[in-house]
């Protein structure tokens, strides 16, 4: 302040920018440290191994109903909107093509990822944030447990392992619901829909969805763990962490979606 007596009004936004930048860089550094710690903690299989299956059930199995629900209605809407868009010179069997391609390549993984960012990411963040503000994490460290191996690794691995299966089931549900919608509401026949479904199908499309869902699983659970462990200021901080987890996870999911499309397609 002494150095810039004349530009006091201008120094405030500059200072705010500096603080934000430093905070962002600090967060990146902390996230990198968490990632490095997680990789190191993979050796402590005796710690995270027993916890993996319960986390897989929480992250994967418990997420299947909501994922299928969203995929089912997405398939219905896709089918109806495709028929609305394609009315005219384009044959109706392209409804199958659009439903199949869209569900496999885009809507299945991304909508499931966004949904699980809200359900799983917020859940993990709130859980770990509560443990942090109630000093349970500190207690683990006191008991010589590695909190990363105990809390982060099983959740992140569960997300990485279970997200692809949830996404595959969601894709199947979306295609099935789109198919049924085409049969019941669009006056299409099954051979027509299947012809369109198979028209431009590539096995690589499924692998593309699996790769994306793995990355989404890592992002959602990893950011949930990171935000949860960064929680402070009591219950209010827990809520902020949960919100932050959902927002950041959703943004990164969409960024990754564009990244994988640019890299793999």
């Amino acid at each position: 302040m002494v150095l810039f007596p004349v530009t006091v009004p201008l120094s405030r936004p500059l200072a705010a920018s500096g603080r934000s930048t430093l905070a962002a860089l600090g967060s990146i550094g902390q996230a990198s440290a968490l990632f490095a710690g997680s990789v190191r903690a993979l050796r402590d299989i005796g710690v995270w191994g027993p916890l993996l299956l319960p986390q897989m059930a929480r992250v994967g199995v418990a997420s299947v109903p909501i994922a299928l629900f969203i995929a089912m209605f997405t398939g219905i809407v896709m089918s109806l909107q495709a028929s609305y868009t394609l009315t005219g010179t384009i044959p109706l069997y392209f409804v199958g093509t659009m439903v199949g391609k869209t569900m496999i390549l885009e809507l299945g993984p991304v909508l499931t990822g966004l949904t699980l960012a809200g359900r799983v990411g917020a859940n993990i963040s709130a859980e770990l944030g509560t443990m942090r503000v109630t000093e349970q994490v500190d207690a683990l460290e006191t008991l010589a447990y590695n909190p990363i191996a105990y809390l982060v690794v099983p959740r992140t691995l569960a997300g990485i392992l279970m997200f692809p299966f949830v996404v595959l089931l969601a894709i199947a549900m979306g295609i099935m619901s789109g198919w049924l919608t085409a049969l019941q509401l669009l006056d299409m026949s099954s051979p027509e829909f299947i012809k369109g479904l198979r028209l431009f199908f590539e096995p690589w499309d499924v692998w593309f969805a699996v790769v994306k869902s793995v990355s989404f699983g890592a992002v959602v659970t990893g950011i949930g763990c990171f935000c949860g462990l960064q929680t402070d200021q009591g219950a209010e901080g827990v809520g902020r962490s949960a919100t932050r987890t959902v927002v950041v996870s959703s943004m990164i999911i969409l960024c990754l979606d564009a990244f994988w499309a640019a890299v793999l397609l």
Partner: protein
Amino acid sequence: MERRREILVGLVVVLGIAVGVVGTIWLQGGWRGDQLMLRAASPSAGQLVAGASVKFRGVAVGRVESVAVVPSGEAVMIEMSVRPDLAIPPDAAVLVAPESFFGDWQAEIIARDEYQVHPFLEFPEEGVLPGVALPDFSRLTATADQIAGRLTTISERFEVAFTEETAMNLKNLIDNLGLISDDLSKMISQQAARFDELAVGVSESARELAGAARTARTMLENADSLLTDAGVGTMLGDAGESMRNLRTLTGDMREAMAEMRAAAQQGVTTMNRLEGLMARAESGEGLMGRLLADQELAEGVTTAVANLNTLLADIKDNPTRYLSFSIF
């Protein structure tokens, strides 16, 4: 609780794997057993990709397994798997063509003699079917673009050529055509009148011809009656006699001609001899030759002849001078 959790996780994992694997296989066209592999070479693949349909007589019988450019770069090798019981025609070829208007292409196995207009690529490798790819929409669009460009050029040239002056010239031309049309109309009217006169003349000529025909018919009838009359026989007999006399006369003339030919031959011979004699005389041979060649001898002979004449005259006048007649 732990057991239930394990079952649920296992169920989700198995279901996810099953959905992924079975769904992929099903969307690729289902699980297929042993397949017959075919290869075809084409100058181009168009929009054909692996997984596209292979059809035979419009029925899907397999799919394209791979599409790749051959190392020499002169063709595209298309590998296809088809039903093993497919009876492929002996002159089979592969036609790569759009399956619909929306970018999906297919490879169709065809009998080559049914598509003779297409330039199939003959690849120098055994077991490779000849193939050809129809032009895709981009090429058709490019051709249409060329046509459009040429039409634009033509329209621009027409615009340049069709000025106001051209329009005026065209108007004058049309006016002139109108005048020409009027003149032609008048001329046709005049010609029509002349044609009427000509028709009248032709009609009269036809009547005269009809009269002449009637006269000729009458003459022919008379000639016919004449030919049927008995006097003709006499006339024919006389004519035969005349012919015989004429034949005799001809024979006599032939003999006279032969004699004349012999006389002429003799004349020629005589003339040849005379020419020989004259030649010898001119060369101074014989008496005549010497007389011709020797002036003195000729004068001597002349003198001798004159003396002989004098002698003969004297003998006539005075025979007793030279002759004495006595009986005993």
